[in-house]
């Protein structure tokens, strides 16, 4: 199943600060919820072991995450591939970054493709949880940068 999401964050920092943050795998990784184990595998990639739980559906997912900055277009693309519980998840997210006076606006869109038992058994649940997850990540990006700035 294919799920589409989008959202927006206003960050109290300038473009450069935001750009630096989202190019740093270590910092980006910290924005994922419930990370149990983290391996930085390159200057633009990391592997995260994440605990997931939706009601009775609980387990550990492993994600390989790659950051693909597109400086020319002021855009950051994120590819996330992994899964657990027999399920494969491919998530691609793109964020357009634009400075507006003192703030920087992050316009993001994401598309998640879920394959395997969770897609069949849990469509009703996954959609909401995936939305929560991706919203959480960008909210955390904002919160962390805001904190850095403060």
């Amino acid at each position, binding site marked *: 199943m294919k799920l589409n999401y989008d959202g927006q964050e206003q960050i109290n920092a300038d473009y450069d600060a935001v750009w630096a943050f989202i190019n740093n795998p270590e910092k980006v990784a910290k924005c994922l919820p419930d990370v149990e184990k983290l391996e930085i595998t390159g200057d633009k990639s990391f592997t995260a072991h994440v605990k997931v*739980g*939706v*009601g*009775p*559906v*609980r*387990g550990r997912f492993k994600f390989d995450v790659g950051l693909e900055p597109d400086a020319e277009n002021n855009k950051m693309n994120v590819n996330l591939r992994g899964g657990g*519980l*027999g399920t494969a998840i491919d998530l691609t997210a793109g964020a357009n970054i634009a400075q507006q006076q003192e703030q920087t606006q992050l316009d993001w869109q994401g598309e998640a493709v879920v394959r395997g*038992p*969770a897609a069949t*058994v*849990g*469509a*009703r*649940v996954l*959609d*909401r*949880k995936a939305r929560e997850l991706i919203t959480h990540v960008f909210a955390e990006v904002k919160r962390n940068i805001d904190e850095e700035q403060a």
Partner: protein
Amino acid sequence: MFPASFDFYRAHSAEEAVSLLGEHGADSRILAGGQSLIPAMRYRLAQPTVLVDINQMQAANYITEENGELRIGATVRDSDLEFSDLIRTNYQLMSDVSDVVADPIVRFRGTLIGSLCHNDPSGDWPAAMLAARAKMIIQNKDGKRVVNADEFIVDSFTTAVEEGEMAVETIWPTPSKNTGASYQKIERKVGDYATAAAAVQLELNEDGTVKEAGIGITAVSYVALRVAEGEALLRGQKVTRNLIKAVAAEASKMADPIADGRGSAEYKKEVVGVLVAKGIMQSLERLGRKVEA
């Protein structure tokens, strides 16, 4: 399919269960009827490391009616409700639901409180709980607390029951003689989750106007929803066709379903209104009343 390994404990009292949950933390689960949990474990979508079985808690197996309330313990099965004369006579909504929840064999094992705690967004009982204005008693190591239906239902598969807590009793107000109710469910076959469903309970005044209305809908959002606007429209009014249409429209308006094998979002949104309407009409019929033109 075969579940992943876990440790198995038997609790003989709620205190013991709560203490075991406290000891083992987030990966421990209560095993009541197990009719949702065990299949999830067979698919290994759920892999709890500790199960606390409460089935031998004899003291939790009760259905009692006193002081205008029905109290039901944690090990009461759906079939206990289905075959209970008390329920059939005095609790129309509960009786309706207990006839259509899951399939007849699963009902012999599945528990009412277990279903409520599982809080499947397509489950039957949460919608009924809302319509009937039922409550839940939750126990933890420090004691008990009571939450009403609206607070109990938090999110998909998430209730007010926190880690280390256990729901021990559910309380359903005894409907007055002037109360009619109906559960309207569309399912693709016996045993299926609802495509959409509506629980309706109407209490009438002597003059036929609505004294109190309860409407819960399920399978049309991330949790069961109370159609509060619809309830408000009904209160104090004579039930006319136009009023029913307006209430149905409220249900459709607040429904926010996703498309799946059971149907498109548009269909579910529209049909849940039809089910609310049918539920109102049947509630009235059961009181020997007709919809006014």
